[in-house]
């Protein structure tokens, strides 16, 4: 691994080796392929199916795809969603043998049962409505919502859940309604609703038990993540209590809380915040135990062992791209983390030898120079590159000179603007006089 760069291979100092030392035991890399079964067992309900289908679409690997589709098929069979069933069968395309083909009998059965249940629910709801019993109407709408959700008609499910709002009497009901609405919105991908319902549920403290609080925080964190507000997302995930446990598996697994929270924090927090809120955070430590790679990479970043940190990130990347919430943010987050690492590396030094830095980050000097150039132009690093000797010199702006320059410039601008203004005033005066004269002539 170290032989591929052109840095002096013999000079292994502490900074260069950066923790990737052969003498230590190899850290836990999950660079081998994701175990689909283990991954799917973390979730339940509809999200399990969606995630499996996502993996099947995205992974390049035939065996993994078939595995995911097989598990999806079995999961769907346990439920009542005939639409999804048809989709999965189409995707499988007969590749898994006759046991995983189109089971028309099952589909018809499910549809017929659905019809019956729907009729029953409608009748019940109508009778409740004529009787005007609030609680029963609420439960009726709730049942309708559940029904539609089970059959995959998410829009109607959402509408029905929202309708229960008018009939909620206790804060427990409100919480239930909000949680349902949040669940459906996450499935639908409409995260603005998620944020609004989280904020509706939060101001009722007496009914909130720690599990619900944790659930709401996760939902809020997901919403922020989708909205690319990584700092807020990180804060929400970090505040999630360990009581979440396995109670929210229909949305998110505790491993995900660790992963999302850890990566967002790394990309957006500064050093003090990282230490206080992540490394010293006892609650969050429970989550980090579940995903030891994230824990290791955060520690490496904090102790400036950049090469190993970036290596962990690379290994995790393939699996993270298969996650339905994180996949389109992976690139951005990784870039931000890498930039932060570069900035943090150069921060304490007056001059840095680019060769050593390149071997610390395991890139070539030319590539490193390009990256640093971009950061300097962006004003994130105050330094200049001596391209001849390949050294980076820190440069601190001279306040005194800058002040003088600004003063002289402001003076000349004032000069110019006031003169122009006086001229314009003069022109206007003549215009007024001309018009007044014209009016007098009339």
């Amino acid at each position, binding site marked *: 691994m170290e032989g591929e760069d052109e840095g002096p291979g013999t000079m292994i100092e502490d900074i260069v080796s950066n923790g990737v030392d052969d003498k230590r035991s190899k850290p836990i890399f999950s660079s081998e392929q994701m175990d689909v079964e283990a991954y799917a067992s973390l979730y339940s309900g509809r999200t399990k199916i969606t995630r499996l289908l996502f993996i099947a679409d995205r992974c390049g690997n035939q065996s993994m795809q078939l595995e995911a589709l097989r598990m999806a098929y079995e999961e769907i069979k346990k439920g009542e969603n005939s639409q999804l069933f048809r989709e999965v069968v189409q995707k499988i395309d007969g590749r898994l043998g006759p046991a995983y083909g189109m089971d028309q009998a099952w589909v018809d059965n499910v549809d017929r049962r659905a019809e019956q249940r729907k009729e029953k629910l409608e009748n019940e709801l109508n009778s409740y409505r004529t009787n005007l019993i609030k609680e029963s109407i609420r439960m009726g709408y709730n049942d309708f919502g559940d029904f539609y959700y089970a059959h995959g008609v998410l829009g109607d499910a959402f509408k029905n859940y929202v309708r229960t709002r008018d009939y909620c009497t206790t804060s427990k009901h409100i919480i239930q309604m909000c949680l349902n609405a949040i669940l459906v919105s996450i499935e639908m991908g409409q995260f603005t609703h998620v944020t609004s319902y989280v904020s509706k549920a939060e101001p009722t403290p007496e009914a909130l038990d720690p599990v619900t609080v944790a659930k709401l925080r996760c939902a809020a964190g997901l919403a922020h993540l989708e909205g690319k507000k990584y700092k807020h997302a990180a804060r929400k995930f970090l505040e999630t209590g360990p009581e979440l446990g396995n109670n929210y598996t229909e949305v998110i697994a505790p491993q995900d809380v660790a992963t999302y929270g850890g990566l967002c924090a790394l990309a957006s927090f500064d050093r003090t915040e990282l230490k206080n809120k992540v490394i010293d955070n006892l609650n969050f430590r429970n989550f980090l135990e579940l995903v030891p790679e994230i824990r290791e990479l955060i520690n490496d970043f904090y102790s400036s062992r950049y090469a190993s940190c970036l290596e962990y990130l690379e290994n995790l990347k393939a699996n993270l791209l298969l996650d339905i919430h994180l996949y389109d943010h992976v690139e951005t987050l990784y870039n931000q983390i890498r930039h932060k690492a570069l900035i943090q590396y150069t921060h304490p030094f007056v001059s840095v030898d680019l060769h050593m830095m390149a071997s610390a980050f395991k890139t070539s000097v030319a590539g490193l120079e390009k990256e640093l150039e971009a950061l300097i132009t962006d004003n994130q690093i105050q330094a*200049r590159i001596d391209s001849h000797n390949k050294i980076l010199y820190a440069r601190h702006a001279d306040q005194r000179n800058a002040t003088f320059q600004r003063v002289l410039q402001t*003076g000349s601008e004032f000069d110019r603007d*006031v003169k122009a203004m006086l*001229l*314009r005033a003069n022109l206007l005066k*003549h215009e007024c006089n001309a018009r007044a004269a014209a009016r007098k002539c009339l």
Partner: protein
Amino acid sequence: MESIEALVAHIQVLSSSVDDISHLHNLLKQAEESLQSQASRLAPFLEQLDPSKHSLGYLYILEAYTSAPIQTEQASELTVSIANFINSCLAEQIRLAPDKFTSVCKRFKDQVLLLQAPIQGVGPLRTAVRKLQPSSEQLTALHPDFLQLCLLAKCYKTGLCVLEEDIFEVDQPKDFFLYCYYGGMICIGQKLFRKARELLLNVVTAPMSTTNAIAVEAYKKYILVSLIHNGQYSTTSFPKYTSSVAQRNLKNFSQPYVDLANSYSTGKIVELESCFETNREKFESDNNLGLVKQVVSSLYKRNIQRLTQTYLTLSLQDIANTVQLSTPKEAEMHVLQMIQDGEKFATINQKDGMVIFHEDPEQYKTCEIIEQIDLSMQRMIALSKKLNTVDEFISCDPIYLAKAGRERPRFDFDDFDAVPQKFNM
């Protein structure tokens, strides 16, 4: 109605003291018609008069004489005689009849242009401008003519000395527009882009009720000069005080320039060049081709400037690659030019092919810089005083008071009384 001879006699007699001059002035005004009718006969009378003493009378007769069409043989000697007159006339007498003087000078300019020797007119018109101005802050109708002759004769430096005075009083908006436009062109010729930009901006933002062609042309040049000087031009925003007429219409007339500005802001030479090629004929027809070529070369400079922000030393090869020049030699040429122009402080090491960039060595510690700052401060103080006097003057202006009185907020019964418009004492 007096005969010309009598008039000439009057002139010779009455040109000595101030009272006599005003009496003479009245006589001349009454005699104007007769002078006009006998225009062609007036040449010999001119020789009887001495321009340095009898300036007013000479002026009237000269004006009448030149109002008639002139034959080409007489044109050159006429220009000589007018030039003599201008150089020797008395400023106080001239200022009594400014419009006559202006029309004489304008005809002089026409003659000079007909003879295709604009340089002959530059000197006399400069003296004319000086004599006509009641103060150095006043714009006269002759300023634009003078600048036009300077441009045609390519005597930019003489034009500059007039431009350096600040103008605050303007009589005719059209004169002002032309003055700023020609002034801008002269500054461009001398590569004083900052001043050119100021002058052109004055045209673009001047109060106008309708769009005029001068403003359109000035706007086109303004875009180009902004690009060369600042490296950027924001095509979307005019300053707040631009008239709405200008804001709406100017961009429509200068679309190729706006496109050029947009492709400049991408920073890529290739895009700029392609935009240049597509609009080449339009630039040529506007006589702006040279300026546009300067814009293109300034993009290289801008890119090299950006490099100096990030690098302490850089090889010429790298500069050439980043800025998309073809050879390191060209890069060296550009950097050398920038060093000579004082835009960048650097050292070229030809042995290694490296350029070392330095910081601005100005430490703001020398006596000269202190003097400069002191002068600037005094200028500011003078300007502020001027601003205050203008403000006071407007506050006492009856038209302003009437309008402000009408539109003031009314909090009290007393406020509903009319603002006193006149004080009858």
